[in-house]
């Protein structure tokens, strides 16, 4: 297992390095001069030159590249062009909000999706199967901001169960109120996905010989389903949960906007609207870091649910 993990960690480092290079390139292949774009068409040449100097755009490309890489490693991601604060501070300030939302949504999505998928698989081609399949297809069809808006209309505007703006969390009850709808929104969409994966994984596992053997031995049906079959069906599910995090983070951007919740999503949209290139660069680095860390965690979880991985 050690060798497996070392290999995966090395791959993650390569990924990180490659994406950092990509980020560097993307920010610089923008048509036009970033300094010009930031200051607008009216800006005079000296102001543009000054900003170019501040951004380090007048240095040789290779120099900029190594400076960027070194900075990324040291946590020096430049200074926001709008607020003047270090980019990393701005990000660290809102990061807990996004991480908390993603984490709760992930638990919700898995806790709803896995049992539903098992239920559908066990009742294959019967009513529960049809209902969960249609429901999960509907769930998959929702753009996350549409479902968020519908939840907002239903629960905040009509039923008035939750506040429209969910930023206050001074008491546990307020915290619960502020996170419920956003997490429900992300969790339900994720559950739709997880349900389908679990269902097909369970269908495959249920055809295995050892399931038949267990039945022949007289093992109670629930034990076969929930212990023997599910344990093996979870292997692909774990991979998918890990892969899904990329989608979840993307969806959280839209969810944060609809529920007006602080987080990386609102930060990146603000940076986009104000053309804060330094901030955008930092945001891409942090998103990459999150994805890489999650991939490593997924590998660990993989080794945990599938003992065979340890051998390779």
């Amino acid at each position, binding site marked *: 297992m050690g060798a497996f993990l070392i290999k995966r960690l090395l791959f993650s480092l390569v990924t990180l390095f490659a994406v950092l290079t990509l980020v560097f390139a993307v920010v610089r292949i923008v048509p036009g001069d970033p300094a010009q774009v930031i200051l607008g068409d009216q800006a005079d040449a000296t102001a543009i030159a000054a900003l170019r100097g501040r951004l380090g755009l007048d240095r040789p490309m290779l120099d900029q590249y190594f400076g960027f890489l070194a900075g990324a490693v040291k946590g020096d991601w430049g200074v926001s062009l709008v607020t003047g604060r270090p980019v990393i501070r701005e990000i660290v300030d809102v990061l807990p909000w996004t991480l908390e939302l993603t984490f709760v949504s992930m638990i919700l999505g898995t806790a709803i999706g896995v049992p539903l998928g098992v239920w559908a698989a066990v009742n294959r081609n019967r009513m529960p199967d049809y209902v969960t399949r249609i429901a999960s297809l509907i769930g998959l*069809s929702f753009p996350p*901001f549409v479902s968020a808006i519908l939840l907002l209309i239903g629960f905040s505007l009509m039923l008035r169960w939750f506040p429209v703006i969910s930023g206050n969390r001074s008491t546990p009850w307020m915290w619960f109120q502020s996170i419920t709808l956003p997490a429900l929104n992300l969790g339900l969409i994720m559950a739709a996905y997880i349900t389908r994966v679990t269902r097909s994984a369970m269908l495959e596992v249920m055809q295995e010989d050892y399931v038949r053997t267990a039945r022949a031995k007289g093992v109670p049906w629930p034990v076969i389903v929930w212990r023997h079959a599910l344990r093996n069906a979870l292997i692909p599910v774990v991979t998918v949960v890990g892969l899904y995090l990329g989608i979840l983070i993307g969806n959280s951007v839209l969810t944060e906007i609809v529920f007006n919740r602080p987080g990386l999503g609102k930060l990146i949209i603000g940076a*986009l609207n104000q053309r804060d290139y330094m901030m955008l660069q930092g945001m891409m680095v942090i998103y990459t870091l999150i*994805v890489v860390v999650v991939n490593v965690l997924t590998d660990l979880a993989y080794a945990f649910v599938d003992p065979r991985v340890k051998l390779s």
Partner: protein
Amino acid sequence: MSTSIHDAPQLAPPRLRWLKTTIAAFNANKTSWLGLVIFFIVLLMAVFAPWLAPHDPVEQDVLSKLQAPFDNYYLGTDYYGRDIYSRLLYGARISLVIGVASTVIALVLGSVIGILAGWYGGRFDIIVMQTMDMLLAFPSLILGLILVAMLGPSMTNIIIAIALTSIPSFARIARAPTIAVKEREFIDAGRALGFSDVRLMGGHILPNIFPEILVMGSLWLANAIRTEASLAFIGLGVKPPTPTWGGMIREGFENILDSYWLVLAPSIAILIVVFGLNILGDGLRDAIDPKLKGER
């Protein structure tokens, strides 16, 4: 009676046979017909928008702003007094054009990359697919919105951004069957006949993996339409006053407290199209997936 060339007319001509397999694939899972019908209705509404729309989609009439649905206007009017139903019809055009164009670009480029990687294998395969995996790992919506923000929100740029984010998926889909098919005897036979790599890949691998790619295409079209709407909702859509569904939701969201139908109509429109494409692709995938064959 031995098989001879005279038996050939009993088989349908190649073109009809293709049609028959397609219909059989649709029949394998009847809901895919429903998906196709939904998609066609939306397509027709988009194409004939100028004839179907009762009003000009960008014409403002401030005196009749924010009217509720079913009164003078089918679906009411927005903050500028524009007819929501007409805007929906024209918005469908933007969604479909961006969706189809970006999906076709991603499908073609992704398939080429996937087939080349699968065909040549070795180090080339490893490097290409690791790159694709890396792109796949990055949240596609965020990649898309950064690209559009950098390039500027025009129709072409949105198409490019969405296409770029979906290329890796098509490459993955095309690669796996290529590896399986290239070991088959008919490829060896082609090689023995001296066919070039390009001819083998284009003429013999591609037709074999095409159904799978096409089915994924319908699912990714759904995804592309959803992404376009999301970008427009963030403010990175085709510029106003051109109606887009995501943009209509964005504008309506500002008046959500008193006129929630502004966001409801385009939301439902997106849902219907994406759901239609999803059941279409999902049903077809079940039909062509050899693992699932004979299950129904």
